[in-house]
């Protein structure tokens, strides 16, 4: 997208903006007032199943989110409800096009800007249209890239907040949006008769996996028996041991208590989705470094819970970590080393 001004780049002072449309009250970047903010152009987004996930994300980060879509402009405050700030109108479309141009985002493209609490652009992703399909992946990769810099000294709270924003929104915001393989679930009633198989598309570790299953199939069995992703373990099969823990839209859940068919439309992350090539996720490395297992059966579940724990960022003391990790049982009793690994990984990132 050509524009008269220089496109925004990382390190620059963020553009201030005000969108009016036909609304009485403008929506402007000054609302962030010293908080980090995210400006997301997600053309096909509308409030839905991911709304609560986004809200939870913001709550942990104290950030404000502006979403620009074809259906209007929304603002999310961490301590408030979703608000449709400006309804679509011709005037709003013109303003959005102008703002997009300043950010280097074309009128049909998705893009995102992450601004820290000092008003500096820390992440900008404005893909050309042929790259749109990989927006979520690009965000996710960027988040991991930032998270995977454990050796960089003097990493600040501000850096951490920005990384969390990028990684977090990579997981939840762009799920099902922006021309990716997965369409948002059609708003029609789905029915499968008893004893018949149903076709489902599961989004696992950033890939769409199509499979035909009996509706009784748990997400755990779908992963292990149908997709050969056996890193997720079956322990009790009743939600009591945590060996089957995976991330659903970034949050730890028991795959054994989840029907696979009911997980359609969610972003599922398993232990196989953590490493980048040969580079282990910091928590995987920390579990090895701290000898945080003996037989290893519970380990993938422990690590997935720990990934969510560090991402959510609420549990800090050893006691808080123990409490949040209490859904993961280790029969070898490696708990002291598991806690040590988690606390060490927290320091690394």
């Amino acid at each position, binding site marked *: 997208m050509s524009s008269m001004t220089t496109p925004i780049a990382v390190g620059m002072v963020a553009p201030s903006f005000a969108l009016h449309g036909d609304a009485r009250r403008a929506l402007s970047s000054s609302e962030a007032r010293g908080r980090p903010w995210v400006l997301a152009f997600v053309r096909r987004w509308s*409030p*839905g*199943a991911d*709304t*609560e996930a986004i*809200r*939870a994300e913001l*709550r942990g980060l104290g950030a404000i989110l502006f979403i620009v879509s074809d259906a209007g402009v929304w603002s999310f405050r*961490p*301590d408030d*409800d*979703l608000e449709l700030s400006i309804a679509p109108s011709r005037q709003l479309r013109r303003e959005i096009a102008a703002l997009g141009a300043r950010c280097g985002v074309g009128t049909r493209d998705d893009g995102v800007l992450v601004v820290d609490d000092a008003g500096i652009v820390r992440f900008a992703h404005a893909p050309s249209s042929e790259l749109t399909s990989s927006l979520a992946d690009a965000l996710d990769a960027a988040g991991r890239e930032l998270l995977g810099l454990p050796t960089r000294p003097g990493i600040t709270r501000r850096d951490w907040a920005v990384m969390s924003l990028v990684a977090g929104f990579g997981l939840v915001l762009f799920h099902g949006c922006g021309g990716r393989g997965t369409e948002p*679930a059609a*708003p*029609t*009633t*789905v*029915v*499968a*008769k*008893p*004893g018949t198989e*149903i076709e489902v598309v599961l989004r696992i570790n950033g890939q769409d996996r199509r499979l035909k299953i*009996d*509706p*009784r199939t*748990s997400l755990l069995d779908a992963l292990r028996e149908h997709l050969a992703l056996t890193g997720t373990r079956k322990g009790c*099969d*009743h*939600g*009591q041991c*945590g060996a089957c*823990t995976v991330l*659903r839209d970034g*949050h*730890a*859940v*028991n795959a*054994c*208590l*989840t*029907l696979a*068919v*009911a997980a359609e*439309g969610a972003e599922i992350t398993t232990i196989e989705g953590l490493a980048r090539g040969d580079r282990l996720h910091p928590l995987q490395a920390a579990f090895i470094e701290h000898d945080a297992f003996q037989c290893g059966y519970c380990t993938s579940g422990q690590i997935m*819970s720990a990934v*969510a*724990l560090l991402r959510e960022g*609420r549990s800090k003391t050893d006691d808080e970590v*123990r*409490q*949040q*990790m*209490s*859904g*993961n049982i280790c029969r070898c009793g490696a708990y002291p080393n598991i806690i040590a690994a988690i606390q060490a990984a927290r320091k690394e990132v």
Partner: protein
Amino acid sequence: MKPFSYVRPADAKAAIAAAGTEGASFLAGGTTLIDLMRLEVMTPSAVVDLGRLAMTAIERAGDGVRIGAMARNSDVAMHPLVVERYPLLSQALLAGASQQVRNMATVGGNLVQRTRCPYFRDLAVPCNKRAPGSGCSALDGYTRSHAILGTSPSCIATHPSDMCVALAALDAVVHTRHGSRERAIPIGEFHTLPGEHPEVENVLGQGELITHVELPASPFAAHARYVKVRDRAAFAFALAAAAVGLDIADGRIRGARVALGGVATKPWRSAEAEQALVGQPPARATFERAAAAAIVDPKPRRDNAFKVALAQRTIVRALELAWGSP
């Protein structure tokens, strides 16, 4: 697991229609339903997945708060409105289950959570709740986890929820929809006592959908506490739990709320304990009198007689902590 038809409706109207047939069951978080379906304790003919329904909002409603039935327990517990206005609810939710389960379980699902009585979960033995008329195995069984209040000769199963105990103390109202009919059910009238029909646990009709829960304005936020006593400090059901709130003015208790969990067949509000508190100065002696008044005509059995004293001490501790004594 028995075969079932899976239905994922796009809106509440379709959900209510799909769940109207005998044997159909709503699926919310699945933490109870899928578990019990795998044991074949529950064998619904149709599972109506509520996952696509937009009922997750947590929002102001006047001076109160309105919580969508599909709001996750973890999101409710951490929501600033809940933390600020209803710390009791936040504490109770965080005392329940594991992080994974709290991330899945919903407010609506928690209201209809089934008991953890081991005989209910064991197909090999009689259970009036699971198979009406077959008998109660708990009566002559191991009763350490069972109820001492609200029991009947048919059933002594404990209501397992932490959340519902806080809701009972907070005068929550459960809102439902059934066809075009909507109703508002005070929490105290939502759950039913086992009596001769322990298979009936609440007043919902077949296909009646819980849409949201409303909490009225509460003067108890400053002095509220949920205390849960259990065999281990996390991920265990209550042996006894107390949800209390005090409204203190000029050195006197102006209003009080006391509800019990882990000891009764439904979330147990104690008007007797509340009466014993109102008008009195907040002090240990007052709290002990209230605790003594709370347990009326208990029916302890061989292995759970300790729950009488435990429940009373739990109430005293909760009141002390709510008041602010160390």
